[in-house]
């Protein structure tokens, strides 16, 4: 059973529906007690980092997520959930969860024709193999909508990149956490397959299948 963390951050129901579509059993919860004991966690999110962090702190979900991470629960972060797992974000001055060393940064685009937010379908280029990226081929595209992206301190934690006025990290992995900047729940068949793979992932970084 996957627990989708419900913290008022937008795309929770979309993720739940996507899980249902591929027969992945999932539930949503905003209860820190439930989250801390979850078998597997999806940490979704759309919206702004400051209000998300404020909400997580207020509800105690921040500690619950950290506890789950420390006890090796497999966690999949999506979009904002891939940003606030780092130590800080250029979106606001608050501390973030700090599960992964690094910070979230805003696009600094030289090309004036490129727009922020980066919105639409773009290629995910796998730079390091990971169980959750199995089967993704050159040219495969996923759906993005964001103005910030995760920038892990250690380049070893970057698993996939996307080019938008230069390559940025669109998938990071660190211990039992994997997090993607794109939206698997809105990325058609390829995105749904990633959710399926997550159910089989035990939280280690070995290629499965």
């Amino acid at each position: 059973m996957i627990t989708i963390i419900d913290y008022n951050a937008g795309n929770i129901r979309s993720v739940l529906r996507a899980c249902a579509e591929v027969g992945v059993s999932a539930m949503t919860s905003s209860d820190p007690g439930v989250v801390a004991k979850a078998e597997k966690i999806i940490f979704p999110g759309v919206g702004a980092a400051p209000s998300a962090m404020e909400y997580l702190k207020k509800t105690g979900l921040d500690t619950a997520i950290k506890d789950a991470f420390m006890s090796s629960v497999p966690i999949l972060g999506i979009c904002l959930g891939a940003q606030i797992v780092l130590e800080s974000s250029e979106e606001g001055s608050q501390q973030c969860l700090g599960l992964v060393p690094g910070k979230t940064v805003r696009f600094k685009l030289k090309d004036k024709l490129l727009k922020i937010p980066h919105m639409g379908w773009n290629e995910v280029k796998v730079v390091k193999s990971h169980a959750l990226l199995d089967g993704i081929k050159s040219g495969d595209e996923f759906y993005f909508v964001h103005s910030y992206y995760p920038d892990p301190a250690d380049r070893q934690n970057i698993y996939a990149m996307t080019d938008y006025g230069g390559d940025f990290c669109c998938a990071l992995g660190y211990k039992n956490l994997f997090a993607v900047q794109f939206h698997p729940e809105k990325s058609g068949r390829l995105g749904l397959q990633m959710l399926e793979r997550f159910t089989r992932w035990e939280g280690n970084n070995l290629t499965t299948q």
Partner: protein
Amino acid sequence: MLSKRLVVCLDVRGGKLAKSIRFADTKDIGDPVARARQYYEDGADEIVFYDITASRENRDIMIEFVEKAASQIFIPFSVGGGIRSVEDATKLRNAGAEKVNVNTAAVLRKELITEIADAIGSQSTVLSMDIRRVSPTEKIPSGYEIVVNGGIAPMGIDALWWAKEGERLGAGELVVNSIDADGTRDNYEIKLTRMIAESVGIPVIASGGAGKPEHLYDVLTEGRADAALVASIVHYGEYTCRQLKEYLHGRGIKMRMNF
């Protein structure tokens, strides 16, 4: 680099599928969610549901409809038609629509765009514009005028000005719908699309007039559109989404091809 998008538009009336020809003579052609699902599986990059009844009584039906669609379609979709308030927009967004299209109500009270963008984000706020060709005047220097109420009411507003104003007010995307081209299948209004796409910094979806794959190519290249909206050419089975995308991809346009 972002791919260009193929957007399929489904006109919905009372939860049923309809397709308008020059905004008149609508006829039902089946269940829109099932159709949208078919397009999603066939490679459509985005779906637009346009509620052509748009009466107040229809709001709840539309919310139910969006929830049903959201459980079947795992690509972004937007909803338009009759959105008059932040509350309308928020409900549709919460029901599972990625984006909300405003049109007439924004023309009548432009602050609505900002209010919706503040509530659900610019990226989810689409300004849809129905536009017709007129003789340029002092008031309409571009020679393109905004019309509302399904294309019958001229508003005395310059379309180019309105596009830029919409962006300034917080719209994250524009739909440029040519009333002259709509339903003709004679090609998109390339000149209009290009004029607007070159004047704004947000994505432009070209709408109205698609009859052949070449038309999509034209509007995505010469017309500078970020996305091409199609309706009847896929609804009546002349082309599949896959065929259209393969054609465009074959001519060197970056499209999402593995779906």
